[in-house]
C-alpha cells in the first residue's frame, strides 16, 4: 500500500475510526464485566456474612 | 360484531367531544404546510415539485403526533384492563382502536390534503391520486401507530420512543405513497403498481399490526 496515493487519508481515516470504535466497544464491555463482577462478589460476600452469625431468638 | 363497533363508536365520540385527535392533527398539518414555504422560499415552481413529498411527510408526522393518546387514557383509567377481560379477542380490540384512530385522524387529513395542497401549489392533476393514495396509506399509518402506542403504553418517555420505533416502519408507506401520488406527472405507468403495493402494505398491516399490538398489551398487563 503506497502512502502517497491520492485519497490515502480516507483509507487511514476509515481504518483508524473502525479501530477506535471496535477497541472502544471491547474496552467498554470488558470494563462492564469487571465492575459487575466486583459488585456481585461484594453482594455475595455480604449475604454470606449475614447467614454466618448464630441464630438469634425470633423477634415476636 | 357489535362489540367491535361499540369500541369504535366510543372512541370517535371521545375524540369529537374532547376535540383532541382530529383537531390537533389538522392544526399541526396546516401549520407545517405554512412553515414549509417560509423555510424553503415562495418559488411556486419549486414548491410544486416538492408538494407531494411534503404533504405525505406532514401526514406521517400528524398521525404520529396523536399516537400516544390511543391507549394511554384507557391504560390510565383501567379501561384497558377491563377490555382484556371482554369476550372479544385483544387483536380485535387493537384493530378497533386502529380503525377509530384512522377515522378520527388519518382519514380526515387524507380527504383534506388535496385542498390544503393548494398551499404548496399542488398540480391539479394530482388531486385525485393523492386523495386515493392517502386514504389507502393512512390506514397503514394508523395501524402501525396503534402498534407503537401498544408497545409504549404506560412508559415514562413513551411519546419519544414511539417516533423512533414507528418512523422506520413508515418508510415503505412514504415511498410508495409519494410515487403513487406523482406518477401521473412523472412516469404514468408507475401509478398502478405503486397504488397496488401501497394497498398491499395496508392490508398486511391490517392483519399483522393488531396481532403484535395485542401481544404488546398482554406483556404490559402481566
Amino acid at each position, binding site marked *: 500500500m503506497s502512502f502517497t496515493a491520492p485519497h490515502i487519508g480516507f483509507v487511514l481515516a476509515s481504518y483508524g475510526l473502525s479501530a477506535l470504535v471496535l477497541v472502544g466497544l471491547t474496552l467498554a464491555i470488558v470494563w462492564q464485566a469487571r465492575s459487575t463482577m466486583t459488585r456481585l462478589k461484594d453482594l455475595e460476600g455480604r449475604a454470606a456474612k449475614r447467614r454466618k452469625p448464630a441464630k438469634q431468638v425470633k423477634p415476636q | 360484531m357489535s362489540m367491535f363497533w361499540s369500541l369504535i363508536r366510543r372512541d370517535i365520540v371521545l375524540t369529537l367531544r374532547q376535540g383532541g385527535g382530529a383537531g390537533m392533527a389538522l392544526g399541526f398539518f396546516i401549520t407545517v404546510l405554512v412553515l414549509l414555504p417560509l423555510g424553503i422560499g415562495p418559488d411556486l415552481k419549486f414548491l410544486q415539485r416538492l408538494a407531494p413529498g411534503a404533504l405525505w411527510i406532514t401526514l406521517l408526522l400528524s398521525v404520529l403526533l396523536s399516537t400516544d393518546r390511543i391507549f394511554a387514557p384507557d391504560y390510565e383509567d383501567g379501561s384497558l*384492563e377491563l377490555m382484556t377481560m371482554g369476550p372479544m379477542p385483544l387483536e380485535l380490540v387493537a384493530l378497533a382502536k386502529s380503525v377509530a384512530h384512522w377515522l378520527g385522524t388519518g382519514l380526515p387529513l387524507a380527504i383534506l390534503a388535496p385542498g390544503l395542497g393548494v398551499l404548496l401549489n399542488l398540480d391539479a392533476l394530482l388531486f385525485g391520486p393523492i386523495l386515493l393514495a392517502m386514504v389507502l396509506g393512512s390506514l397503514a399509518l394508523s395501524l402501525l401507530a396503534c402498534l407503537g402506542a401498544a408497545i409504549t403504553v404506560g412508559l415514562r418517555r413513551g411519546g419519544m420512543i414511539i417516533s423512533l420505533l414507528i418512523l422506520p416502519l413508515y418508510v415503505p408507506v412514504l415511498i410508495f405513497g409519494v410515487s403513487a401520488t406523482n406518477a401521473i406527472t412523472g412516469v404514468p405507468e408507475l401509478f398502478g403498481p405503486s397504488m397496488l403495493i401501497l394497498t398491499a402494505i395496508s392490508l398486511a398491516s391490517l392483519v399483522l399490526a393488531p396481532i403484535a399490538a395485542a401481544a404488546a398489551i398482554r406483556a404490559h398487563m402481566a
Partner: protein
Amino acid sequence: MTMQLSAKNLVCRRGGRTVFSGLSFTVGQGEGLLLEGPNGTGKTSLLRILAGFGALETGSLELDGADDELTIGQRAHYLGHQNALKLALSVEENLSFWADFMGQPATANTIEERLDAFNLGHLMSYSAGLLSAGQKRRLALSRLELVSRPIWLLDEPSVGLDAASCKLLAAAMMRHMEAGGLLIASTHLDLGLTFTKKLNMGDVAERAP
C-alpha cells in the same frame, strides 16, 4: 351442574420475591371467599392472577363445571382501585358502552335500574366528570350487576364509600351469591356480610419457605 373454582398450592413470585406460596382454596356456587391479611401479602396479586393479569409461578387453578372454554378472566368481573370510567361520557353512555363491549347490550331502563341499586338513577344523563369520587366508585360497582358474570373478584370494593353505600354494596354481593355466583373479595371493613369462607393471606405467607 355447579361451577367451582379450585386452586391448589399456588405460588406467585414477582421480581425474585415470593409474594405468596402454598395457597389452596375452593369456591363453589353461592359461596364467598374473604381474603384477609396485612398489606403486601398478595391479596391484590391473587385477584389479578385470577382475572388473567400475570402468571403463577407454580400451582394449578381449575374452573370445573364450565361448559365453553372461556378463561376465568372472561367469566369474571375484576374491580381494582381504578373505575374504568370516561369522564367525557355521560353516566349512561359509560355503562351502555361496557354493556355493548361485554356482549350484553342493555336498554336504557335496565341501566337505570342498575344505577338505582346504587342510587345513581337520577344522574343518568350527567357527564361522569361531574361525579364525586364516591359516586364514581358506585358507578363502577353498578357495572357488576349490569353485565352478569358468574365470578366476582373485588379488591377492597368499599374504598371511598360511605356507610350507606357500603350497605348497598353488601346487598349487591348478597344478591350475587344468592343467585349462585362466586365471590372472592379482599376488604378491611366489616361489610356486615357473612362470608362462607375466609383465607388469611398473612399466615399463609408466614408458613412459606
